[in-house]
């Protein structure tokens, strides 16, 4: 049994302590926007925010998550797709298949929180998630666009 704070609500879940947070989010909590890609912290498809920092949830045991840790998944990033990163992603039509994009968006949102005006090098270093469809060029452009948007608001 674990108590989690996900997207602002408290959830009690039935899961063995060594279950990866990713699978608890997907199966016990039922939020499937966070994806499984590799299970070994390589691809970033499972990225969520924990206390405002981006983390690869496939490699965090649910038993190591405190009830006070604030977990935010893609479903909780904004209530209506209005986060500057989501808007920039839409404006540039970033996604192809879309499978990696929850993770990409969570990584970008965390980057902008930390570094509101990222350089190309900041983006290179922070955006390490895999996109097999190869949307990287648009991801870079959309991060810059979202940065401009964030700084205006």
């Amino acid at each position, binding site marked *: 049994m674990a108590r989690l704070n996900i997207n602002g609500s408290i959830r009690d879940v039935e899961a063995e302590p060594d279950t990866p947070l990713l699978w608890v989010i997907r199966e016990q909590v039922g939020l*499937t926007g966070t*994806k499984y890609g590799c299970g070994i912290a*390589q691809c970033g498809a499972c990225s969520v925010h924990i206390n405002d920092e981006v983390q690869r949830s496939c490699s965090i045991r649910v038993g190591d998550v405190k009830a006070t840790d604030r977990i935010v998944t893609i479903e909780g990033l904004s209530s209506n*797709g209005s986060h500057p990163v989501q808007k920039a992603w839409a404006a540039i039509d970033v996604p192809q*298949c879309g499978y990696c*994009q929850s993770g990409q968006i969570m990584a970008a949102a965390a980057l902008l929180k930390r570094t509101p005006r990222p350089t190309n090098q900041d983006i290179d270093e922070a955006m*390490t998630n895999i996109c097999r469809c*190869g949307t990287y060029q648009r991801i870079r452009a959309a991060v810059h666009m979202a940065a401009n948007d964030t700084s205006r608001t």
Partner: protein
Amino acid sequence: MKKTLRGNAAKFSRRTFIVGSAAAGGGLALGFNLPSGFDPALAQSADGGAEVNAWVFVKPDDTCVIRIARSEMGQGTITGLAQLVAEELECDWKKVQVERVTPGQNLARKRAWGEMSTGGSRGIRTSHDYVRRGGAAARTMLLQAAADEWKVPVSELTVADGVITHAASARSLSYGKLAAAAAKVEAPDPKTIRLKDPKDWKIAGKPLKRLDTADKLDGSKIFGIDVRLPGMLCAVIKDCPVFGGKVASYDEAKIAGRPGVRKVVKVKDTAVAVVADTWWRAKAALEALPILWDEGANASVSSATIAERMKEGLAAEVTNGDRRNGDALKAIETAAKKVEAVYSTPFLAHATMEPMNATVRVSANKAEAWVPTQNAEASLAALSEASGVPLAQCEVYRTDLGGGFGRRGGTQDFVHKAVAIAKEFPGLPIKLIWSREEDQAHDFYRPMSQCRLAAGLDANGNLVGLHVRICGQSINATLNPAGIVNGKDRRQLQGLWEEPDNAQLGYTVPNLLIEYVMRNTHVPVGPWRGVNTNQNAGKDPLDFRRALMSKHPRHLAVLNAAAEKADWGKPLPPGVHHGIAQFMNQGSTSAAVAEVSVSDRGQVKVHRMVVALDCGYVVNPDQVAAQIEGTVAYGLTATLYGECRVRDGRMVDLNFDSYPIMRLAEMPKVEAVLVPSGDAWGGVGEPSISVVAPAVLNAIHAATGKPVRQLPLKNVKLV
């Protein structure tokens, strides 16, 4: 959100769609617990609105629902096909919605939507004509309905943005008001339908936003891996790591009492699956389950032993298909200068971002599958075959794919395996998800191959003879043995053919011999995004190529377009070098110029790729550009890192730590140059991948003075 689908054949008019197997089963009532946004039922008249024809359903609020038969895996086919229908329909693009046809529905309506297979870049190139005709026929019927209503000749009507106007009497009606009447109008004789000249396109040909972006931004899109149904159990599978091996035994007692575990299932002699209430519990249990394998005859095969066989094939007497003109061997023998080189490429996995999965429910007289598939009809056939339930009582609900790249097409191994497990749980949906490791261990790989190239040049450096011999595994031998005729397998020489329509070699060589030698292994192979003939013969500059291409104007125009955009021949920053390549496949010609530098330590950096493509007609330039960007990333990953090594008969690179995928920091600036010739409809999703590696390798050659003849580059010492 709970959705219930109802089908009641009796209520519907002749034209109204009858939900797939309801036609056979006498009514369909399914309870779904799928999140909203995924509803496999087609819009029906009972819900308001009317189906004008198979492609177009119009709602009372003027929303035009366009039906899509091809699979969306990121390539934008939904948007592109909808643009083509909408263009002829003359509807308001802002009011377009799409819905996905199921193969059961297609079958029940005598394939009203044609072929559903989505591979070989054929989503648009082989269906543009009939989908446009579908849109045009619906428009004609709507116009006729308005003419009947007002008792005026059709010729006095105009239509724009889904509104039909009779100027003389200042009357107008929108499609939503006319649809029910239009549905009763006789469909026009196909021979009378005249399609618009692409010059006049207003919706097609434009860089419109994709229709399917919103739910990819907030996590609400339901991929196959996300499907959840009432009572569903989850399964994880492990196949014998050595291809062709079998399960010897397993010790189920060792995992007895683990939380959530329901059953261990032996799947077809070769695999073991664990079924549990959650996937993670199933996976943890499978890892704890002791399994003994009978690895069979192939347990000692390795990449090295396979390479030996290929090498032998390069010198073999008997070949399995060729193309020839003149006497290449003699021309090379007697040439002033002779060049010879051997190239090699490894097995590659598709590594779709979404691992293989399928959800299946089998009951006594019904079988259903929810599956990301590139070929929904093949999924339906596999479901019926594996479950023993007649085709008419089977249905497949397509989810959009988290990547396809050729992996989710004809093989349908994921459906077969899911059915085998689901049969053990009658009436319960079973979701089978492969782990990434299983996905890498049991792909149908891009074949390993070697190629020997011998060329003869005259005293002026002109090419007088060329002999290309490719040795490798046959995709047909694994997937389509009928494709090999009298021992000859033409498919393996794709891109080197003489025939102009699809995959023609773009060079004219006076004496040419191209041969294929088949050497099959125990590793299953299949199509992998694009055709990957390694054309790095060219250490030769642009002019050398141009001279060979005068009889191939379509190839040449694309080569020139890429060279021009890339400022070929103009100075580059210090240390940066150009490489160029061109190729034709899936009916499109493409060319690329790469700008590459190689550091003192042999580190390759690709700075910029200019890629030109002639796909005949461009339906959405922004999406064609996106596909080109994607082929550069997919092609560069293969060039830099791609390799699946075989050791002890099994694949050893089982996750992204040892099968790396290119990341954002390595992505070059990609510039797409679209040069549609209007000659023929070509593919978009794959063709340009073939020029990525050769352009980069030729640039590396320019940088280091040494040719690269082996992929991936991670294994090659460049300086």
